[in-house]
Every structure is written in C-alpha cells, then in structure tokens.
C-alpha cells in the first residue's frame, strides 16, 4: 500500500485510467454479462476482450496493452479447479506471477496488473473488481513515460 504514496499530486478529474480486461468466455465474460443483467454499475473505464480461456492470454498481450497506453490490465478466468478447459486458468496464474515480477522490474506497479477469478455467477465480484481497480489507478496516477518505454 505504500508504493505510490510519494507520487506528486495529480488532478484526479482530468485523469481517466483505461483498463483492458481479458475475460474467459465461460466464467468471467459471463460474470460481466451478469453484472449487466443485474444492472450493477461500475466505472466505464474498462474495455473487455473476450477470449475462450484465460489460458489463451499471451503475456505479450498484457505487455502490448501497457505499451499502447493501458493504465491497468486484468486477466480474468474461472476459479481454480473450475476451468472449462481443465487447467487453462492455472497457466494464466503462472504467467500472472511471472508478469507481475516482470512489470515491477519495468517500473509498473503491481497494482496495475491483476489476475482475478470471477465465476459466471459473480456479477457483483466483476463490478467490484473494476471499481476497486479504477480507484487504485486514480490513486496511482498515470504510468511514467520511462516505464512505458521499457515495454
């Protein structure tokens, strides 16, 4: 929680963080749909990209997103042991650990990248995840230019 505390003040009104979320078709995309059917409101800062499985998310997708200006990236899949494709989410989790370290090295705070497990029945969790992440990103402010260039 301490990271970013010394960041200079920025005008939070002018800053609209952009989040790219990779959602697996079976659980998280369905969860996002459920958030809609139950009319749960969350900030419009997220762009969802549907993939069949969280295991499909290539680390380069995440890096590319940061390089192109994303302020945060979420990889969302089925809960552990609930993967529609047996174990794709485990692979996503492994890549997530690796990516977190890598991004930290590159000067991108770990809070900007998340691997989340959101089931098809967890519309609320989806909405909460986005809300929390947007709040966190607003607190962190934009990514430094050098960090982006590092990608």
């Amino acid at each position, binding site marked *: 929680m301490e990271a970013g505390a010394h*960041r*200079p003040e*920025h005008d939070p009104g*002018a*800053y*609209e963080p*952009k989040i*790219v979320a990779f959602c697996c078709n*079976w*659980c998280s*995309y*369905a969860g*996002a*749909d459920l*958030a*809609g*059917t139950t*009319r749960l*409101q*969350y*900030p*419009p800062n997220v*762009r*969802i*990209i*549907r*993939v*069949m*499985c969280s*295991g*499909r*998310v*290539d*680390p*380069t*997708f995440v890096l*590319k*997103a940061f390089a*192109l*200006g*994303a302020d945060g990236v979420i990889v969302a899949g*089925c809960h552990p*042991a609930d*993967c*529609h*494709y*047996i*174990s*794709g989410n485990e*692979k996503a989790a492994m*890549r997530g650990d690796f990516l977190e370290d890598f991004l930290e090295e590159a000067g991108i705070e770990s809070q900007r990248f998340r691997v989340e497990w959101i*089931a*098809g*029945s*967890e519309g609320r969790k989806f909405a909460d995840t986005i809300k929390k992440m947007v709040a966190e990103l607003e607190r962190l402010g*934009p*990514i*430094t*230019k050098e960090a*982006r260039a590092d990608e």
Partner: protein
Amino acid sequence: MTAPEPQNKGTPQGEPAKIAGAALVPKVGVFVCHCGSNIAGVVDCGKVREAAEKLEGVVVAKENKYTCSDLGQAEIIKAIKEHGIERVVVASCSPRLHEPTFRKCIQQAGLNPYLLHMVNLREQCSWVHSHEKDKATEKAIDLVLMGVSKATRLEPLEAREVPVEPTSLVIGGGVAGIQAALDLANMGFKVYLVETQPSIGGKMAQLDKTFPTGDCAICILAPKMVELARNPNITLLSYADVEEVKGYIGNYDVKVRKKARYVHEDKCVGCGLCSDACPVKVDNEFDLGFGQRKAIYIPFPQAVPLKYTIDKEHCLHFKTGKCLLCVKACTNEAVDHEMEDEILTLKVGTIIVATGYETYVPMKKGVYKYWEYDNVITGLELERLINASGPTGGHLIRPSDGTTPKRIALVQCVGSRNKKIGNNYCSRVCCMYAIKNSQIIMEHEPSTEIAVYYNDIRAFGKGFEELYHRVREDYGVEFIRGRPAKLSEDPKTKNIKIRAEETLLNKITEREFDLVVLSTGLRPSEGSKRIGKILSLTTSPDGFFQEAHPKLRPVDTAMDGIYLAGCCQGPKDIPDSVAQAKAAASSAAAPMFAKKVTIEPLTAWVNEEVCQGCGLCVELCPYGSPELVPGQKGGTKAHIIEALCHGCGTCAASCPQKAIVTRQFTDDQIYCEIQAALSEHGRKQAPKKRAEAEVSG
C-alpha cells in the same frame, strides 16, 4: 468439450491470412441496435453510427430498433446483398445470447457465418453505466472500433458436422435418472444408467409418503424401477462409478468402474440365504442407522437389481480370511470373494446428469445439538421412523427410550436460507415435507401435539396450500413463527426445551418437547461434485449445477450434449424432478434423432514453417491434442489433432515461436482489439497534456 472431427482431414482450414500486410481491407457493415431503450436510453446510438461510418473499411452503418427482429435481420441481409459487405459487426447484446441468431442471418445472405463479430453494448455498456450517458457513448464507440478492427481480420471457417452415437448415458439412478432413462429407452435409444449404490431408487426410495397427495413413495417408484430393469434398451450398471469422460457431443468415450460386489450378478437370484447365514450385523445406511443389515446385503427389500453385495469393510472374510458362511449358504455359487473391479468403456452420444442431492448435516457444535441429544433427529430420519417398511414398522419412537413421543417440534430452515453457513437458498421441499410428516404423525397418533417452528411457510405448488390448511385446521398442528435460539435437554427425561421468540407475539417462549425434528435442507451431493469435475460442469453460487439459461434452457448445460435432471441442478420436489427428467430426455433425444450435429470450428492450427518442434504445446495441452510429428520439409514439428482440440488457446499463448494460431482468436485479431481499445480516439486527455503528466510523474 466440443472438438470436431474434421470431415476432410487432409486440408486444415485455410491458413489465416496475414491481413496486417494485406492491401485490401474487407468491406464491413456495422449494425447498431437500440434494443428498444435498453441501449438507446443510455448510449447515443446516432453518434455511435456516425463514428462507425468513418472507420476504415466500413461501407454501411445502420441503426435498428431491434436488430434481432425479423425487420432488423432483413436489413442486414439487404445490406450484404446491396453493398457486398464481407464482414458484419452487430453492436447489440452479449454474443452469448444472440451470436447464433446473427450467424444464421448472415449465412442466409450467403456469407460465411464466422465473418460476424458481436459488440456487447447492452450487458457490458448501457446496463452498467446507465448514469453516465456521455461516457457510455464514448465507451460504445470504442467498443465498436474494437469490433470493426477485429472483424476486418476474421476468416471464413467451416462448421463441421459430426455423427451422433444414438446412445445415452444417464448418471444417477434416483427418480430423475430412472425417468430420463425410461423415456429415452422408450424412444428407441440405447441407454446406460450408472448408479453408485448397489440399488437404484435414490433418496425417493427412503421416503415414506409424498406430499401433497400422500402416495407411498416406494409404491409408486418400485414399478418404475422394475420397468427399468426389464427394458431391453437399458443397461443398468449399479454399484458403478463414472471415472472419465472424453470427447464431445455425439461422441463421448466414457470409462466406468463397476465395483466388485463379490457376488456374481448373473448367478445371484436374490434369495437371501447368504444374508441369513452372515454373522456380521452393521447399521443400515438406508435406515440412517436406525435398523441393521448384514455384511452381505441388499439395501432394501424392493432393491433393483435384486442382487446381494458384500460390504468389504465389515465382511469377516476380508478381515480375518475365514468365515465364508455365505459361500456355503449360496446354492448357486454366486458369492465370490476373489471378484475384482471391472472397467468398462462406453461410447455414447449424449449424457444426462442426475446425480441428486444430499441432506444437510447439522453442525457438530451447533445450536440444534443434533450430535449431543438423542431426541433431536433430522427430517430424513423421521421419514424412516414413520415408514411402514422402516426399522420400527412405521411406529414413531423416541431414540432415547423407544417410547412414543407425545409432543413433537419440527424446526424449519435447518441448513437453508442461512448466509452464515453459505446456504443462502431455500431448499423448497422442507416446508411441505414437514407439513406432510406432521399429517402422518397425527393420523397415527391423533393425541400428539405438534409445533412447527418456521420462518416463512412456502406452500407454492399444486395442492400444497390446501395441505397446509388441512394440517392447521383438521389436525391442529401449531405453527410458531420464529427460529429456535436455544435447545436444552432435561438430563433425566431426555426431553428437550426449546427457547424461541414467537415473532408474531413479540414474546420469548420456552416449551418442552419429547422429540425435535430438524427439517434439514438439500445440498449438492458429493457425487455431483465429482461428476462436475469430470464433465467440467459449472455450478451456480449455491453449488448446484448451472443450467445454460435459467428460463429458456433450464435442462441444458453450457456443454453441448450434456443435460441436467433432478436435484443436481437445484432443490426440487418429485414432480419437478420427473418433469425435468422428461425434458432432459427430450433434449438429449433431439441430436440423436437428427443423427448429426454441427460443431464450432474454433480449433488451433500449427504453422509448420515457424514451428521449431520444441514440444511445449504438447506438454501444456490438457487434452493431448498437439503431437510431434516429422515435418513435411524435415525436422520435428507440432501437429494439432483437431478431434481432440477444444480451442482453449493455451498452446498458442505459450508458443515461443508464435507458430500456433487459434481460429477466431488469433494473435493478430487480439492485437487489433487491444490497439483499438487504447487508441487515442475518445480519450479525454489530449496527447500533449498526457505527455506532461507523464513527465511530471
């Protein structure tokens, strides 16, 4: 679990073109749906259309009130024909809802159905940002941009037809499984019914009478069980477990372990001489510990198949190596202690899951003292105690001293509607079974006093409310609205005092009872969890299996060819279980009658030129789909066995050479979406200002 068997094995579907370098951008048509006011009430669809018109490749952009309506679809077809549109983007609701609709639509216009991309403006935009109209519109424009940019990269794919094995597997032999199997068999299909217990019948066989009509449960179930055993189309595999399921709709390979009964089914005639001879007595699980059985046993007299089974855990021979009295007693040489488990492999086209439920077991240290006080029992235990074929011959007794209880309390919502223990749902049957049981008790012993502690009485079914009134009016059963807070036992009499607030009186009451019956709720069974894992079925928050759509596809699962019946999908009573079983049978029959189904071609494909044959994909694939083969131009190359590929894309994400392409979700397509999502278009912050912000950071 869909994986197509390619019809033309030699030629994999065309190598996805590298459009990035291609000169020609295909013609795109964009159709923005208002969905009445669902989308248009929040998103300014006019603006979205205008923005879409300006995008590269877009030749037509139109708005529709309801794109999914006949009118809307006609407009798409017209535009395809008039403008020669090659890719269609429909910006409306979730692809999970209407993708099949629009695929069919563009196919009608002669376009390959996979050249469609749906942009989710409803579930993921207008409905979730209904208070921020401007920002929602901005986001909608971004989403359309992403959609168009992916659409330009779409490639035509051929859905493949696969034959359907006209055989069905029914997992679970309760009333739902029995009904589904019978219906399918009567339609002429071959059915395997796998039941883990030695006999079919499930929980219904344990019940006394059924509500609201008072039919005897086993009397109406037993004939169905016998009918099932006699049906030539049904192979009954009792005392067996499904261990593995592979394949996809129409073509499932199932591995079943037939557990050793230590009695040859073909030789056993069910005479019971062996059981008479057996010296070992153990508690009978069927009577929930109130009665006893032998180590070689049938669970209950009406068991189907009527074949004896040795309980290995308690059999003296397995413990000491001696005894063998059952072997001597059997006149047919059916008993065989050397028997071993048998593995069967079945080929089936469809699967019906009917794995049922378990009753909630009260907590060890809970308020209701189920484990501490003898005279606190559960509803299912009560069913056995009032059952004429039960351990007491239908005479209700107190477990502590065998006397007839005069004052009985029934406690509702035990293990249901309880957020603390995570069972938030209503179990649907407890109110009615408690009411039914109090009626039966009152009929046996009219002088009994019965009090039902309830939260809300849910008597919603046909004849339910009438029964509720009958027990209040004719039998004088008392209903107390309040949840018991404290149970305490008199150490001498073993009577139980219940303290509870009678909420309608606004007073705390304390009353003494001879017997307390907990109306325990329903939970997903352990067997369901195991089968769920094997079939990769999803569950809803309550832990029961999730149906494909709560209203319109209540017996389907997200997996084609797998259907749900009975309480594995959620608590329900017998008529509902039977109705759902019939529905599942009818759903499963449809592809088997058609003899073939079409399957989405979303499989992976290896570009041999780039592949280095490192084998990482072979290691990672959970289905064993990639294999290493000698390349056409030498070297070792990966090759995807398409029949086994489920299209998850894990291999593509890990391929160090980026040699693997997952159709409809190619790297190129996803890159385009990322790029479009983050394009400066619609950004509030001007690039210059942004740069400043970055410098200051």
